[in-house]
């Protein structure tokens, strides 16, 4: 008995957290996600539908889900010479790799100044730099596995004012993780001064865990640590509420149903009319959302597997 206590003490002196305690909290690890969840619920052929953002868009449009309008698709370097044909006189647009991952290679243009394009944060992009960026995308610099890619130029979504106020310059988006079609965790991703307009967590964005019933903030993660205030504004996380929450959840459910992946991250923005717009779907959503929600995903997954009824108020 005493030996067991001693052993336990020795363990906790060496390890930051004992595995048993994480398991008790229902924390999902990367190996667990890959071996127990992805292999079982996400068949390889379906990844094509989420890895190719144009394919995702097509499916969404067919199902009546709103997506950003596509202005142009660049699939050959020759097209890059004629920026006027691709972009024309547009003031605002977004350049994205079709098969990009983790927000890499995304360029958000918010205005023009003379010949130059103005990226979020007043950074001037010369036409020359824009052409090079497009060529880099085509060459596969940002694509999954480094293979040759296409670039797409699409509508820049003007975010909802309530969320824009929280995110300096960039657009906030909502990430909802769905398991077997049911939302199990949600997080609002806010760009910060450090993340240059992008909301991806590993680029310095803040992730605010959301109560699934109400869409209000419960906790937040920033640079891998739990925080309870917005790092730029100092506003308490509990004050944050996502408008039109029921519509956002409904869009996420529809997206999961259309794609067919059993474990899926739905990335959704709210436009200035509070309409949910699907940005993309992710077939291998990350695990930091657990920190933002101060809770484990495995627990939720087990609830769904056990056929636990959904808490009222979601539908």
């Amino acid at each position, binding site marked *: 008995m005493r030996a067991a206590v001693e052993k336990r003490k020795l363990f906790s002196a060496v390890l*930051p957290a004992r595995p048993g305690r994480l398991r008790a909290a229902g924390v999902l690890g990367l190996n667990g996600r890959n071996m127990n969840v992805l292999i079982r619920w996400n068949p390889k052929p379906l990844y094509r539908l989420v890895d190719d953002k144009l394919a995702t868009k097509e499916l969404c449009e067919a199902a009546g889900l709103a997506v950003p309008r596509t202005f142009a698709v660049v699939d050959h370097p020759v097209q890059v010479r004629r920026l006027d044909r691709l972009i024309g006189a547009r003031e605002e647009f977004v350049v994205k790799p079709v098969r990009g991952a983790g927000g890499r290679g995304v360029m958000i243009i918010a205005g023009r100044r003379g010949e130059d394009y103005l990226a979020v944060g007043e950074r001037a992009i010369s036409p020359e730099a824009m052409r090079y960026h497009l060529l880099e995308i085509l060459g596969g610099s940002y694509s999954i596995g480094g293979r040759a890619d296409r670039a797409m130029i699409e509508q820049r979504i003007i975010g909802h004012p309530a969320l824009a106020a929280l995110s300096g310059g960039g657009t906030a988006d909502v990430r909802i993780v769905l398991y077997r079609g049911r939302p199990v965790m949600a997080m609002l991703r806010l760009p910060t001064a450090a993340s240059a307009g992008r909301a991806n967590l590993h680029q310095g964005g803040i992730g605010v865990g959301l109560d699934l019933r109400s869409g209000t903030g419960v906790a937040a993660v920033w640079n891998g640590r739990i925080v309870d205030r917005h790092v730029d504004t100092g506003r308490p996380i509990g004050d944050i509420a996502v408008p039109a929450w029921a519509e956002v959840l409904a869009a996420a459910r529809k997206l999961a149903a259309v794609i067919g992946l059993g474990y899926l991250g739905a990335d959704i923005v709210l436009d200035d009319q509070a309409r949910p717009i699907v940005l993309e779907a992710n077939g291998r959503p990350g695990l930091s959302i657990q920190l933002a929600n*101060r809770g484990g995903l495995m627990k939720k997954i087990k609830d769904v597997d056990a056929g636990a009824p959904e808490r009222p108020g979601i539908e």
Partner: protein
Amino acid sequence: MNQQRWVILIAAVLIAAGVGGIALRLAGLGWADWTALPPETHQTLAWLLILPAGALLTAFVRTIVGFQTFGTLTPTLLAASYLYCDRASGVVVFALVMVVGLGGRALLGRLRLQMGPRLGIILTVLVLCLAGAMAVMYRLGLSPRPAGAMMPLVVLTILLERFYVSIEENGLGASLRLLVATLAVAGACGGLLAWPAVGRLALAYPEAQLLVVAAMLGVGRYSGYRLTELWRFRELAEGPRR
């Protein structure tokens, strides 16, 4: 879980065969092993035979410890490419590639070339530097071993490009962590490869490979927490906090 049973069964058979074979050899009932081949082949053979253990080590670090490296087999390849290099010229080649390569890569970045030619130019510059250095050393009366520089150069050029791209995408801090982890695992693999006792074991006990494969099956089916995740998710741990 059907695969789970298969994996356990196969691993059990491999372990039984491996341990049994080694036990028989220890009991003096050995049959052919690789030491029967001519002695001049032993070193190369030993290196070849240790490579799987290097891959196992890398897999262990990635999925159980949780440190990511540039590429799954890169650390093993890097270690292997250094085999014909003595320690001093190995360090020199590495430092040269890093300094000249990163500098050259930064300058080339401004020219906005596509990736293939860009890598080619970096490799050319590195080759010229190395060949130049050798010429100088010969003039000074030193005799470097040119064969030693051959292999690391190619692997290092690719590692350099990945490192550079990673700096742009993940930031310097995260990229340095990746690089250090890659080098540390490569160093450990190198230690294995250069360890004469391990080489003798690999030559004398072919069954050891079965044990390596069994261990890989274990690592490959591991679905528990990574060591680094105990740190990453420590704030979520249930129960009284210390």
